[in-house]
């Protein structure tokens, strides 16, 4: 039973604020991801939980116990680093057993638990090797085993897949999720990769400039981001400037394109924010939500500017009425339009959403 709480945690480096009064709660067994570009404060947050960085203000508690000023070695955290950080002078088994040895666990129990942990990451047969004899993916699995074998209160993952190539990254994602859910361990994960965040997390906290700007489930983050920033950071988004013409709590909104008066679209479903009639905002939709050639729901005339084959899909770049650049997708089996063709671009009203204009978009 682990409940990790960050309460208004603040960290400055000289003049620069790294983390700005961040509050975050992880419930038992939950997998939460801090997602953001480099320099957004996500790693500093994680290192404060680990105890390597002391916050200037705010508290960090585990199960109600304040650990803000505890040194890292008294915190019971299992941590996995991007650089693996395996002890090069110790064998795989000795690396995994390191934390148990410090806890003075008996040799018999230590051997047993080491074996189980290596079994969990399917590396039992490599117990006697040295880290330098392993591949990157194997090293990170050893690091994972070493972190969980001590039965930590919280598992901290600091960009653990960052140093691996694409295929291994996908394999190890599955591995991490499997180990995490098998052990039911509360996990805080830091990444700049939206794919990892969407695939692994129970909840994602999108970070920007030291703040958490949105925290929600992966589907909510993807389908209803609350800002242009979040919408662009997680997946691709097509944005068009629109003006709200009708606002109805039940039926949703009717919006009109700013650059093409007379062209209106319906927006249905929950919106993360409230919009007023006459307000300028962005209409947003994901590439996969467009239906080329459709005449249902919202439609707009568009000219195909480029078609790219991507294996599982075709990427179609279009220029819609009102100079609105749109990128859409066609799945295998669908009709692939040709370049310069004029098509009808359609989407369901609930598949699009509205976003407040950010400060630089208002100008």
């Amino acid at each position, binding site marked *: 039973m682990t409940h990790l709480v960050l309460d208004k945690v603040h960290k400055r480096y000289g003049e620069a604020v790294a983390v700005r009064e961040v509050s975050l709660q992880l419930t038992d067994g939950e997998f939460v991801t801090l997602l953001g570009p480099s320099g957004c404060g996500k790693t500093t947050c994680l290192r404060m939980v*680990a*105890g*390597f960085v002391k916050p200037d203000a705010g508290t960090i508690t585990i199960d109600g116990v304040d650990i803000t000023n505890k*040194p*890292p*070695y*008294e*915190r*019971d*955290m*299992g*941590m996995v*680093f991007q*650089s693996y*950080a*395996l*002890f*090069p*002078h110790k064998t795989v088994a000795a690396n995994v057993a*390191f*934390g148990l040895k*410090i*806890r003075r666990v008996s040799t018999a129990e230590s051997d047993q638990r080491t074996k189980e942990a290596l079994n969990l990451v399917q590396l039992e047969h490599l117990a006697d090797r*040295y880290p*330098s004899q392993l591949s990157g993916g194997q090293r990170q699995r050893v*690091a994972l085993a*070493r*972190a969980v074998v*001590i039965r930590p209160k919280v598992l*901290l993952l600091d960009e653990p897949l960052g140093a691996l190539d694409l295929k291994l990254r996908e394999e190890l994602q599955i591995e991490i999720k499997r180990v995490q859910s098998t052990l039911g361990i509360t996990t805080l994960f830091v990444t700049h990769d939206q794919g990892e965040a969407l695939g692994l997390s129970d909840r994602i906290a999108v970070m920007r400039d030291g703040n958490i700007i949105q925290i929600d489930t992966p589907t909510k983050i993807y389908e209803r981001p609350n800002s242009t920033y979040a919408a662009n950071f997680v997946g691709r988004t097509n944005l068009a400037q629109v003006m709200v013409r009708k606002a109805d709590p039940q039926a949703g909104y009717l919006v009109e394109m700013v650059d093409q008066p007379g062209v209106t679209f319906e927006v249905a479903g929950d919106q993360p924010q409230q919009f007023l009639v006459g307000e300028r905002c962005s209409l947003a939709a994901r590439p996969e939500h467009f239906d080329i050639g459709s005449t249902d729901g919202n439609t707009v005339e568009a000219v195909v500017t480029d078609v790219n084959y991507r294996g599982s899909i075709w990427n179609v770049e279009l220029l819609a009425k009102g100079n609105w650049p749109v990128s859409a997708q066609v799945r295998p089996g669908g009709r692939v339009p040709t370049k310069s063709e004029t098509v009808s671009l359609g989407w369901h009203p609930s598949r699009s959403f509205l976003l407040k204009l950010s400060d630089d978009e208002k100008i």
Partner: protein
Amino acid sequence: MGGDGKKWGVFLLPALATLSFVFIAPICILIVLSFYQMTGPAVVGDEASLSNYVQFFSDPFYLRILWNTFTLGGLVVLFCLIIGYPVSYFLARSNSRWRGFLLFLVVSPLLVSAVVRNIGWFPILSNSGLVNWLLLESSIISKPIPLISNFTGVIIGLVHALLPFMILTLTTVIQRIEPELEDAAASLGAGPVTVFTQVLLPLSIPGAIGGSLLVFTMAIAAFTTPVIMGGNRVLVMATYIGQQFRTVLDYAIGATAAAILLILVGLLTVVASKLGARKVEAM
């Protein structure tokens, strides 16, 4: 490449010629000298034998000098390791703006002539010097402790002179140990002492062996410092060899001592580098 190598090899000739004249030739002559007997001041006979070596290893007087020399080297290495490690750790890990200045301080003993460096210790270590004055004034001791013109003085002088070599070697090695290894150990529950003994120390051993070897060979070969800081009372191999060649004019036994020192240092280097190589291999 082979043809090119030969062509450029010509440029090595001046250096090779100089080295063989000023380095290899004297050593060869010295070793040859050690097989002959002294027949008069600065003169040797013409009958080659091993009797000098037999004499050296059977006479307690010589063995005592050898023992002194190695004890001196060992103690200097030990103190350099103990004093140097924390400094090296700081230099390797710090981003402080004082880092450059500290590095300069570390290297500064090398910029001062050995004579000046040693003489500078007299006002501090002599019986009426700063250290003894402070200890006497604060009534910690009742009569001065001899800190210079003896074995202690030689150790202090050599640690001062050779510490930069230890620190520079250790710093490079500690820099190569990922800081995240220390974080990883701490997150697994290791306190600072355990991090040091379980992670830092084992990973520093190759560097420590390299630095120790460097300091040891320089310590046992040092001449100026034992002469000045030992006040002519400390007889180690280097000072003994100096005496034989410059005062006693027994070239034969002087050459024998020099040859023995050379061979022992050579053996030590081989053993230490084997040991270091094995440690590195295991990683």
